[in-house]
């Protein structure tokens, strides 16, 4: 399956970018910095759960087969404070994701860069209230 997906499982391409701490765990405890992934997927659902939201996406491989991946996203309450709600990323939305696969080799990855296929914009950018944290649900 992995060969048929537009998945980059590059080895040796360690991206040692500054890695701010995920609040609830270390990146390296869950994900493998030697397994970057990059693909297009269709949102099945976004789980607004603590301590981190997860986005389930269907990824279609070159062979036409679809595989589901789970992408770790932000703390949901931080997104709520920036004005995003459960209606902000609906099933069927196409997204590009770049991140790193789970250490255990399952179809999970962190979301380092997520953009919308429709307009190329980054997911969950900005604060609809103009004040991070000021206006929950304002979007």
């Amino acid at each position: 399956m992995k060969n048929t997906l537009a998945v980059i499982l590059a080895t040796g391409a360690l991206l040692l970018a500054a890695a701010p701490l995920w609040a609830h765990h270390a990146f390296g405890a869950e994900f493998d910095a030697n397994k970057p992934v990059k693909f297009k997927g269709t949102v099945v659902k976004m789980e607004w759960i603590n301590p981190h939201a997860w986005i389930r996406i269907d990824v279609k491989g070159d062979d036409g087969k679809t595989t589901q991946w789970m992408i770790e996203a932000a703390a949901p309450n931080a997104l709520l404070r920036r004005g995003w709600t459960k209606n902000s990323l609906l099933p069927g939305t196409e997204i590009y994701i770049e991140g790193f696969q789970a250490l255990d080799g399952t179809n999970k990855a962190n979301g380092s860069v997520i953009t919308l296929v429709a307009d190329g914009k980054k997911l969950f950018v900005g604060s609809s209230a103009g004040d991070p944290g000021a206006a929950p649900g304002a979007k």
Partner: protein
Amino acid sequence: MRYRYLKSVPTLVAVAAIFALNPEPITGQAGKKAPAVKAWTHPETPWGDPDLQGTWTSDDCIGTGLNRAANFGDRLYLTEQELADRQGKLAKQLKQDLVETVAENQKAGTGPPGHWGERARRPCKQTSLIIDPPNGRTPDMLPEAKSRPIPEGAGNATPKADSWEDFSYYIRCITRGVPGSIFPVIYGNGQQIVQGQGFVTILQEMVHEARVIPLDGRPHASPNVRSYMGDARGHWEGKTLVVETTNFLGNRTGITGNGGGTPTSDALKLTERFTRVGPDEIQYEITIDDPKTYVRPFKVGFPLTQEPGYQNFEYACHEGNNAMFNSLSGARAREKAAAETANKK
């Protein structure tokens, strides 16, 4: 939906009242002074206690270190220039948060996008959260404390993960302890204060603590009764709420954001002071006295502010804590890979 909260009439009235009562900058904030119109008076509850009710946040000191950088010496407050620089950094951060497209040469880092977090709204005036001792540094630890095991926190990329019990109480969604539940971290800093006759309750968003504090002078519970968040007793000193908390379980959480670091002991005694200094600001101080851990007590302080529309959100944590499963399965995968490598040799 934009500015939804400001659309409600009660909110507009409340905001208008705040501006009418507080034409001067809130204490602790930078800005030009406007001419005073009417002095602020400390609100009282219907039964005559100082009124601290509302949802407060320590967001403004997000990013300010617990310990002071050595170059600041004994100086607690930033100079005007340093404050302006910090303001400039915040403004730059906000601008970056609003950039909607990915730069062509941008590489995926291992951290989350910056625009997914929460930010300070104004620069913290302090050089450190520790306000005493004068050097702004955590006092030395006693030898027996230095050897105390520290549970695996978010700072270790290759944690010992034989069991979920190797991880910190925060990572396990159990508790952050008292200081760790109020010290500013990158998100979830909400503190809702609710008062009733004879009681104050503080509801803390992240990990969802509810501290119920009796004010009626009752003695502390028996030393045999111990808990993660301790046994709190409060009283008023003028307009200041003073809360003394003892009866902690030892070896659970430490004195940093989210309760990380060397765990404190069962001898820990905390004395907190909540002083409302304006309509939207409480000056918070906590004295940490743990004679089995530190050579002397020390004090941490910072502002808590009220922000328009800010509220606590639900924080069911354990149910969705996929990170715990993934960290344990990740450790098993590492072990398997190491065993396979060893077998090949």
